């Protein structure tokens, strides 16, 4: 296949070899540009965004509370996660008019943070941009254990009403309402429809009856923030060892 092969027969072997060894050499120069404030802006794009932005500001700019410390995302437990899971527990109990044993938010669904200062509707949209619904399922302790194992394998999910340890990538020392989990007890669990439909590897929840009032998870967060503000509380939360890594 080498084009010089045919020139002189005695040399062909050497040439085949040399051709074979002739590599295609690529030099790739890599540069990762940070798109920072120092990069000048293209004004055509600023003009392009104005009409979209103006309409957004009127609906998204509404202030619904204030955060003193700011809430950020991390695992196994985070301030923002506790805020969200508490919102799901509190608001689902109100919306569905029943006691909920535990509430969950999938970690991958925590999409943003809340900065210190005024909290706007727009920030909640960034935190929970998906149109997921808050649903309730009645599940047995054995299934709950399987579900918690998935959250443990994923590094720990935001939760409320329950505490657990992550040991060897499994959920252990699970306490619900302060009591150890019982395989045969049926628990009332608030979750997003995304997870309950088997999303984020939660196939064990799929097919279990859901109580669904079409209540958006994002609306639960907004309603919870407003109710805290009305009670004179800020949009803050603390780390309380709800989920801890046992191996550390």
């Amino acid at each position, binding site marked *: 296949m080498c084009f010089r092969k045919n020139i002189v027969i005695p040399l062909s072997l050497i040439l085949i070899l040399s051709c074979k060894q002739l590599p295609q050499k*690529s030099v790739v120069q890599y540069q*990762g540009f940070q798109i920072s404030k120092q990069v000048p802006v293209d004004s055509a794009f600023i003009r392009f*965004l104005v009409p979209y932005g103006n309409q957004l500001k009127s609906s998204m700019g509404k202030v619904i509370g204030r955060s003193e410390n700011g809430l950020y995302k991390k695992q196994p437990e985070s301030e923002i996660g506790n805020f969200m899971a508490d919102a799901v527990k509190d608001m689902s109990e109100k919306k569905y008019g029943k006691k909920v044993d535990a509430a969950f938010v999938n970690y991958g669904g925590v999409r943003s943070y809340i900065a210190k200062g005024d909290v706007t509707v727009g920030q909640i949209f960034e935190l929970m941009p998906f149109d997921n619904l808050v649903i309730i399922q009645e599940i047995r302790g054995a299934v709950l254990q399987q579900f918690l194992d998935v959250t443990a394998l994923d590094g720990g999910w935001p939760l409320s009403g329950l505490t657990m340890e992550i040991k060897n990538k499994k959920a252990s020392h699970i306490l619900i309402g302060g009591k150890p989990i019982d395989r045969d007890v049926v628990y009332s669990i608030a979750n997003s429809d*995304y997870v309950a439909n088997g999303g984020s590897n939660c196939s064990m929840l799929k097919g279990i009856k859901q109580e669904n009032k079409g209540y958006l998870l994002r609306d639960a967060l907004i309603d919870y923030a407003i109710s805290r503000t009305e009670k004179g509380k800020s949009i803050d939360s603390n780390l309380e060892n709800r989920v801890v890594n046992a191996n550390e």
Partner: protein
Amino acid sequence: MQTNRRKFIEQTAAAGLGLATASLMPQKVAAFKKASQFTILHTNDVHSRLDPFPMDGSRNQGLGGVAARASLITGIRKEKEHVLLLDAGDIFQGTPYFNMYKGEPEIKAMSMMGYDAATMGNHDFDAGIENFANQLLHASFPIVICNYDFNGTALEQKTIPYQIFKKGNTKIGVFGIGIELQGLVPENLYEKTVYQDPIIMANRTAEILKKEGCNMIICLSHLGDKYEDSKVSDEILSKESYDIDLIIGGHTHRFFETPRKYQNKRQNEVLVNQVGWAGIQLGQLDYNISSYNTSKTPSSKSIFIVNKTTK
């Protein structure tokens, strides 16, 4: 329109092939002498981040935004003759722009920036498959994806498996690979879309591109860079591949310090890169290829990465 474009690609490819066989020797000599230079610019997981992050004291404050990215791209295009601008999916979802406008300003801004191709991420299904098809009416670039079968959905005939670009003396084939949708995207959003094995489809498509005479084959992948378990990733795809030169990745939102290098099935080197998310970074890969090996048999390709300081 799409079928016309596909026909056009096929025709150009056929014409190119005819030329190569007709004048084999001079072409080969020319190919050996001519070095080739081109630049790949890329983003992934921009997630509707049209404005920079707000100045609120958070880690990413002031970063990103299409207005700054556009001016950076314009500057690079002035400097470099042969530029391809690519995106590895998850264009949608993450700011209220998406909740309100369902992706219209995102697609329009990418068209204004002159994107050459993009693939689909899982979140691009978030407002439904029909919505994505509708937003594509605003796109001046193709969506390349070869392992989703959209038959019987609104996206049928609206995407293409690959696109071939001629940049100087380099023929660049760009194709796309999407992630498994089941368990990740609600079924009512992706509807009848059939996910096909990414490794089989990627190798099949890359082989087609090689046969069409591409000297450079790029995979836009939304598989994710790598996982702790055996879930298919860019790392696995690169090792299982034969003809891919570069994988522009996404989904896992990782900022690579430098592109990763893997060996494929032919013991050639494959580069994998990913630039985090939210349009915080723009990746630039300047290729300088000494010669194109004219041999049809697999030859060794070595890639030397030179890192410039990140600006």
